[in-house]
């Protein structure tokens, strides 16, 4: 009997199940989650405060509702310890569960920095709705929050917390905010707007230690400055969850290695979303998931289909400075052409042949998105 098992109940797992169910009303689908199995959208966590959403309101459906909606079995709080790829069997404690096709939609972990000081163990990370719920409880009576990491998630949380009235310190080793996605002119504009909300930037430095004090924590920076805060949130980046695959003999690199058919090296085992490295690309964003899951659902329904990635601009949810980025491919040759005004910054990454290879749009320049996006090369073109 055909049985599809999906490990992971995030956007990648549930959307793959949803798309497959549309194609095939009969096939048996099981979704296994280590967490509560509630269906929610992870990107919504970083702007829920200013949207005045309580954590419970972010969950769109319970696992029971999802099981009914998808006509599937949903197993929350269940951990798969091993995948026997030869017999196509999952090990869950003493239980053995057979699959005809297996989808790894495991997601990614927040990278944990090695930090020192007697307050280091209290550093918070927010990677799922359960952690976010706890975070919201912890900050309820607090006023000051320090965020380590001025990347996408760090900047989004900084904007959200500042709008909600918190005093925010934002720390990053890089000399600029969102440095991996924006050229310096774009970063300056974003920093200016976030500063306008009251966010204090500490750039080009790192956290040396975090210690308890009478009212909260003292964060000592490598540049010798200190700051006082009530809670430290770490958002320094994501690391694809590869451990289960690796110990089951499935090839991993930065992520679980798959080709454009989302196939791992093990027969009938696929991967997508934040845990996957597709043709060398690790793309932990929603739009790649949506494109990948449409192809994968076809493949799971026995119509072998390659993933095609068009240009997939990323929206940075910093309402103080609307920002949309479509970074040039790694190794792309060209240079940034910048047009900056007080209202916004348009940064175009142009190749030697005059072709647009990437962009970063801040503020008023975001209005040009729909004109510019069709000019971008696809991330993974059709075969």
């Amino acid at each position, binding site marked *: 009997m055909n049985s599809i098992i999906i490990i992971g109940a995030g*956007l990648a797992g549930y*959307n793959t199940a*949803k*798309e497959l169910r549309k194609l095939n009303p009969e096939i048996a689908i099981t979704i296994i989650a280590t967490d509560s199995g509630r269906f929610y*959208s992870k*990107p*919504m966590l970083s*702007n829920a405060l200013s*949207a005045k959403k309580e954590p419970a309101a972010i969950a*769109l459906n319970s696992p029971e509702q999802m099981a009914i909606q998808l006509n599937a079995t949903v197993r929350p709080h269940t951990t798969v310890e091993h995948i026997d790829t030869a017999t196509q069997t999952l090990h869950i404690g003493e239980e053995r569960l057979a699959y005809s096709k297996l989808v790894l939609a495991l997601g990614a972990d927040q990278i944990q920095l090695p930090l020192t000081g007697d307050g280091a163990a209290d550093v918070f990370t927010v990677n799922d709705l359960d952690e976010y719920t706890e975070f919201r409880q912890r900050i309820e009576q607090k006023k000051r929050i320090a965020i380590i990491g001025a990347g996408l998630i760090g900047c989004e949380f900084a904007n959200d917390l500042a709008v909600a009235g918190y005093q925010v310190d934002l720390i990053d080793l890089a000399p600029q905010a969102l440095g991996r996605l924006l050229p310096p002119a774009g970063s300056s504009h974003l920093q200016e707007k976030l500063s306008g909300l009251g966010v204090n930037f500490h750039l080009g430095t790192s956290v040396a230690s975090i210690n308890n004090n009478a009212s909260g924590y003292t964060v000592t920076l490598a540049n010798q400055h200190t700051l006082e805060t009530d809670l430290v949130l770490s958002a320094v980046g994501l690391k694809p969850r590869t451990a289960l695959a690796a110990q089951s003999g499935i090839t991993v690199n930065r992520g679980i290695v798959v080709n454009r058919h989302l196939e791992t090296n093990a027969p009938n085992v696929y991967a997508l979303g934040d845990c996957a490295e597709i043709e060398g690309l690790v793309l932990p964003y*929603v*739009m790649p998931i*949506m*494109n990948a899951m449409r192809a994968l659902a076809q493949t799971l329904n026995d119509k072998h289909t390659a993933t095609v990635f068009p240009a*997939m601009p990323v*929206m940075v*949810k910093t309402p103080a400075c609307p920002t949309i980025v479509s970074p040039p491919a790694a190794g792309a040759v060209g240079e940034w052409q910048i047009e900056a005004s007080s209202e916004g910054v348009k940064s175009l990454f142009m190749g030697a042949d005059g072709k647009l290879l990437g962009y970063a749009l801040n503020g008023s320049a975001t*209005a040009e*998105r*729909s004109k510019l996006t069709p000019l971008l090369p696809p991330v993974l073109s059709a075969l």
Partner: protein
Amino acid sequence: MNSSLQVWECIVCGYIYNEAIGDPEHGIAAGIRWSDIPDNWTCPDCGVAKADFEMTLKVA
């Protein structure tokens, strides 16, 4: 008539579609109702298809 126009929110990314404003940037004129947007429309911010994801009613 304007009083009956509605505002919708994408459940995945929070994108707002206001029927009174439309989405001229993507070729949808002001006043176009959510129900009249074609099924092959995708959310400009996150790529979720209209057919995949109900927009939720935000403000009546």
